[in-house]
């Protein structure tokens, strides 16, 4: 069976996207708790809501952004589409649609993961326990990635899953950089403060990049270097550059191995994505203090990439969805 139904390609893509999204929600909650704990004692969860543009939906149902409510909203609230439990449910539903294509191990792992989340109690993910909960979520997501790598037959479905994974990771990595950058900005009076805060180290740890960064930048920890590492270093699997490369590589494999056409608009988007992650001098990265704007642009390009995949491969009409 060399051909792949458009719907299945989309299911594979979203399955991987949602798992990646769940992992990144866990990462962001974890990074925010770290910052909140470092501060004068008042924990601030508003930035997480801002980051996901969820304020309106959140404040419709809750009075204030307390740790309790925000954490519930993002971990276990099934009515919130941006929660971990919703993401995993969606991943599972997409996997269910292609259950005859995915391996049994993949399905069982997602199913068990989902069922475990359904059994979480509030206290399991409140401050104090949050880090453990986030670790467990991350581990389950990484297990999924491993099971995909180790068991999924390497045809089109795998390529579309990888496309979903890298697009989502690119998006989330840029958000992680954004939140860290904004936290540091808001904390220091004169723009970027010195690195002694240790906050950028936390960012590195939460992106699982701390050791790699230490190895590549011994004694050279500046915020600019950290940001550049997360943006441009292709060897770091969660960097924006590595993700863009992943998108590019898998599309090319779809073309060379399975004869799928890469349309001119899609090519243009790929070029644009590459331009975003082309290495620039780290020292000048924060000069115009518009890292946020540049992350925003990058995220918009990712959205147009997603839309184009829908038109070119998932059988969606232009202008739909």
């Amino acid at each position, binding site marked *: 069976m060399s051909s792949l139904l458009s719907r299945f390609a989309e299911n594979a893509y979203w399955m991987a996207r949602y798992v990646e999204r769940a992992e990144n929600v866990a990462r962001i909650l974890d990074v925010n708790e770290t910052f909140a704990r470092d501060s004068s004692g008042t924990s601030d969860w508003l930035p997480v809501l801002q980051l996901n543009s969820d304020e309106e939906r959140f404040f419709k149902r809750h009075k204030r952004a307390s740790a309790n409510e925000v954490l519930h909203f993002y971990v276990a609230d099934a009515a919130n589409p941006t929660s971990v439990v919703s993401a995993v449910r969606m991943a599972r539903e997409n996997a269910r*649609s292609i*259950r005859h294509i995915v391996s049994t191990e993949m399905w069982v792992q997602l199913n068990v993961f989902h069922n475990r989340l359904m059994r979480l109690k509030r206290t399991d993910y409140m401050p104090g326990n949050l880090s453990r909960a986030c670790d467990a979520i991350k581990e389950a997501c990484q297990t999924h990635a491993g099971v995909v790598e180790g068991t999924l037959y390497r045809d089109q479905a795998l390529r579309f899953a990888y496309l979903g994974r890298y697009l989502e990771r690119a998006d989330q990595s840029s958000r992680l950089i954004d939140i860290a950058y904004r936290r540091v900005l808001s904390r220091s009076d004169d723009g970027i403060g010195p690195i002694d805060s240790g906050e950028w180290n936390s960012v590195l740890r939460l992106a699982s990049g701390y050791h790699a960064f230490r190895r590549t930048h011994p004694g050279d920890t500046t915020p600019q270097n950290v940001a550049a590492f997360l943006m441009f270093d292709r060897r770091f699997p969660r960097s924006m550059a590595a993700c863009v490369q992943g998108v590019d590589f898998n599309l090319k494999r779809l073309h060379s191995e399975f004869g799928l056409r890469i349309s001119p608009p899609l090519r243009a988007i790929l070029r644009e994505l590459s331009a975003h992650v082309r290495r620039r001098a780290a020292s000048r990265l924060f000069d115009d203090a518009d890292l946020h704007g540049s992350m925003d642009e990058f995220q918009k390009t990712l959205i147009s990439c997603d839309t184009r995949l829908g038109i070119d491969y998932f059988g969606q009409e232009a202008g739909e969805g």
Partner: protein
Amino acid sequence: MTTAKTKTPATKRKGTTRQGAAPFASYAPGGFFCAMSDEQAETDPVVRRIRSRLLRMSARKLRRRAADAEAELYNLGITFTVYSQERQIDRILPFDIVPRVINREDWRRIETGVTQRVAAMNAFLHDIYHGGKILKDGVVPRDLVVGNANYRPEMKGVDVPHGTYVHICGTDIVRDDEGRFLVLEDNGRCPSGVSYVLENRHLMMRSFPDLMEGIPVRKVENYGHRLRQALLEIAPPRRRTPQIALLSPGVYNSAYFEHVFLAREMGVPLVEGGDLFVDEDRVFMKTTAGPERVDVIYRRIDDDFLDPKAFRRDSKLGVPGLFQAYRKGNVTLANAVGTGVADDKAVYAYMPRIIRYYLDQEPILSNVDTHICREKEGLAYTLDNLDKLVVKPVGEAGGYGVVIGPCASKAELAELRRQLRADPENYISQPMIRLSVAPTLIGDRIEPRHIDLRPFAVTGRRTWVLPGGLTRVALPRGSLVVNSSQGGGSKDTWVLE
């Protein structure tokens, strides 16, 4: 440890444990027929071996294995989903770990009997959609067929490959007090349940390898292969490698797990209506590389919803133009359109006559005695014995409107009598069957529970019957209802070599 060993040698030798005697030791079928306890079972060396193994298993061991099996079903997501206000609850079909055993002679009878019925159904369907000889000869009343809601006049004159209409048939069979096999119902539309046959076996092999060890049980695992072969046999002749697809209503269908299962076993895409389209009376599926031709569709969607152009206009599950492509022979559907008239409750009553008419053979498997109330004697008998009979309206499905005489009140019987007189054609009646039982794990005990059997027959050029079938078991004490919605579970079915 050594002291403990020396202290309890006597109990160990007897094969009992501290938890007490094995639950199977106190099993008694309670006056019903039970294939694990009848005289034949006593003399059958294989059945005796299974029984002696069950006799060595403590309640604790059985419970633990049952719990493992249930956890596995849950983790595998072999579940059906119940939706209620924002919540989804995944339920498993309860699996009973005590297998149901069918010996070689009994199976031979079922296999040939089912094959015979399928042959008769196909001959009947061909006839009623062509000349209608059986109607002209008055063997089956014409209005019963052409007036039937499941009769499809659109199928008149349409020729199907090898004359096969019912490619997949599930025949519901029970055993009565004497152990006779009786057909309760034919399912010739979209019978489901075969995935449980295979998954139950898989589960059994994992959770009870010691019970199966050395027992010559016939394999069920090649069902997907056989089904695929049959579907290839019925493909339109033009192309070298026909493309098969399984058409499902989608993830919200209660049998979705089975659709996934069969698509995977056959290695074919699991499509929904929206994945297919018809162009110049040919069927295509939408792939990432563009349209691809489809030759055979194993559809798990009812006739009504297949094609909004030909049948129900409000169907969103189907494919516009599919029926026209089918009628032109550009695609084959399995099962064929219009088979519902052959498994109808009223037509069922005529099945023994249909078998004799086309095959000139006596039915190998009997029907449950059925009194056709549209016939004078049938109505008279029914009215005279109303308190002893089960009366069923012919047009209803799923047990709806059935009156069980011995359980009905006087007022209910009087009302039924009135309805029977007013509209006898709408009813059949049957005696109460004392369904056979099988040993079933209930808590810490093994108790008798009522069972049925649904073997699956696959027909392309010829008919093949999967050696086994779905044994459903009514888990509540005394219950005769095996449906999963009403407390039914299932068992692995062992057909012995």
